[in-house]
């Protein structure tokens, strides 16, 4: 009888949680889950695709950087291991194309000089208010850590499975979906005001940023056969720039995963040795046979 009441309570609890788990899906007003993209940097052995990061940087530089800063990233980072790995010469030449405000000099004046690899990416606007003023009141956010600052709800029970599958590309998946999610508003959607754009994946579907990428907009490096290295499509652009954003947000991702493997192997081996040492030591007890 006691067991029955316990079981009933348990069933009640589980049912309650199941309802609780399902209802966010019902409540999420048709905002679809971003589709999963196969990223080279996912999983325990993930690494960045250098060519992809270099293409992504090109998109960032030619498209995003006119509104979005990446103020935490330095030019030198582009040449560091685990990133796009441009050559030092390329990076120095790139940095020199920017004018960086420096100073004060001996006369107490601020001055401009060509950029150096140690400089941070210059931001397009001097401050947030200037950025808002130039963008109809909307603020194009800094992209340095954006790939880690965006996510979508996985919901129960997926977030538990994610621990074991190491799925953590919520941010990149969301950003890729957003960049490819510009559509005409569906029938019955309230008329868009100036400065509003419809996006399938934006919460509330209204986004201030106009569709940033279009097919053929950015020219990709040509391969030996004279064809572009990757398709010049919105989908490919979105993947490449998102991968670049992930690298900006987590520049030591490769080193982390590489060290992770070494640490896991060491700990697993150490644990195995300790287990047998423990067994050996406990077997010294004169009446060990039935010690648990």
């Amino acid at each position, binding site marked *: 009888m006691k067991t029955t009441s316990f079981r009933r309570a348990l069933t009640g609890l589980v049912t309650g949680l199941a309802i609780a788990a399902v209802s966010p899906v019902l409540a999420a007003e048709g905002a679809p889950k971003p589709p999963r993209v196969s990223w080279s940097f996912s999983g325990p052995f993930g690494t960045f695709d250098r060519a992809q990061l270099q293409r992504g940087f090109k998109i960032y530089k030619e498209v995003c950087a006119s509104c979005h800063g990446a103020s935490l990233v330095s030019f030198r980072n582009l040449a560091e291991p685990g990133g796009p790995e441009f050559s030092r010469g390329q990076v120095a030449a790139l940095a020199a194309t920017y004018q960086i405000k420096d100073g004060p000099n001996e006369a107490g004046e601020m001055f401009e000089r060509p950029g150096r690899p140690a400089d941070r990416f210059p931001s397009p606007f001097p401050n947030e208010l200037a950025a808002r003023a130039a963008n109809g009141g909307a603020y194009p956010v800094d992209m*340095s850590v954006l790939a880690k600052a965006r996510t979508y709800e996985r919901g129960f029970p997926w977030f538990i499975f994610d621990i074991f599958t190491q799925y953590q590309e919520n941010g990149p998946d969301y950003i890729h979906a957003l960049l490819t999610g510009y559509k005409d508003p569906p029938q019955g959607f309230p008329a868009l005001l100036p400065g509003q754009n419809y996006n399938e994946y934006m919460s509330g579907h209204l986004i201030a940023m106009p569709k940033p990428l279009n097919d053929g907009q950015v020219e990709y490096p040509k391969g030996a056969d004279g064809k572009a290295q990757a398709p010049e499509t919105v989908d490919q652009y979105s993947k490449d720039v998102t991968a670049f954003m992930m690298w900006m947000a987590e*520049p030591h991702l490769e080193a982390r*995963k590489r060290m992770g*493997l070494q640490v896991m192997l060491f*700990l697993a081996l*150490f*644990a195995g040795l300790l287990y047998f040492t*423990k067994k050996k030591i406990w077997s010294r007890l004169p009446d060990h046979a039935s*010690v648990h």
Partner: protein
Amino acid sequence: MSGHSTYQPKTGIERWLDARLPIVRLVHDSAISYPVPRNLNYLWTFGGILAFMLVAQIITGVILAMHYTPNASMAFNSVEHIMRDVNFGWLLRYLHSNGASMFFVAVYIHIFRGLYYGSYKAPREVLWILGVIIFLLMMATAFMGYVLPWGQMSFWGATVITNLFSALPVIGETIVTFLWGGYSVDNPTLNRFFSLHFLLPFMIAGVVGLHIWALHHVGQNNPTGVEVKDVRKDTVPFTPYATIKDLFGMVCFMLVFAWFVFYQPNFMGHADNYIPANPAATPAHIVPEWYFLPFYAILRAIPDKLGGVLAMGGAIVILAFLPWLDTSKVKSMTYRPIARQFFWMFVLVCIGLGYLGAMPADEPYVTISRILTVLYFGFFAALALIGIFEKPTQLPTSIADSVLGGSGARLAHATASEPNVKG
């Protein structure tokens, strides 16, 4: 438990030191010859794991503090500086932030182990209460640590939680102003939280010292809950038996820890905390770190603000009264058929509250939170009542008996030792 010392100074230097400061004797008596019940299972390795986590958090934290800037306009970028430019800064920071979560994983297992095996009962009441104090200090430390990166969740978490004190009558507003160092969460708040976040771990270390002292005075509880009757038969020396077992448990725990640090470093965090703090923009859902979620759910379950704060505080404080709330003489729930079912239901209730704490404060979550809050406190009331009528199953006569009583031959051995045990 702590009988007389078995330490024998071997060299002249040891004898000289022992006569002046018997520190080697102290270590010997508490970490080498200290008798440990021989039937401890792996749940008992979490004490050692927690000690390891505290040390790991202090070491990583002290180094992080060398690179961190506690200033509202620089804190976020200084954390990113650690992540990008400091050598192995990403490792230190991920160890520290995931370390906090793993610390709570370990402490919750440790607490539930204590609940299941009745480790709070006489003569371990003070040991248990010291544990509750450590838990409270841990919560305060973790909360203030989460504020330091000065992201959106840092800022708004700090705003919501500090605001709770304003519900207290008369002194509430004064306390909040004092916590903030002004009239809103701002730079002074960040500065004092950094200072306290550095201080509290050393207070934890102090209380942990008392916790271990009390433990070594009364001796460890064990899965049978039957006290040690014959040190020779029921216990083994701490070294090498418990040392090697603890070490194995610790390394297994590190495997899980490393999995998160190296492969899922942001799994237990919140994406919004990678957005710099902005007092002008409230996040859609303000959610505390996962280890606070059950208490957060209790807070939101009560429609009245003061009531919610009291319920949340009460949910922790009630643990300190557990030694006197539980009326059963039997410690281990292994021998308590009814209490055991309530225990497992309590575990499910806590997990359920944790889930609800992460959900928005809408229906049906609010109603379910209320039901589970009642069940949470109901568990403690139930323990008071069950002890009166519950019929415990047959307890083993001694620890040695429970360990060796498996096979026929061993049974004979155990029976033979019974006269000793009765004494």
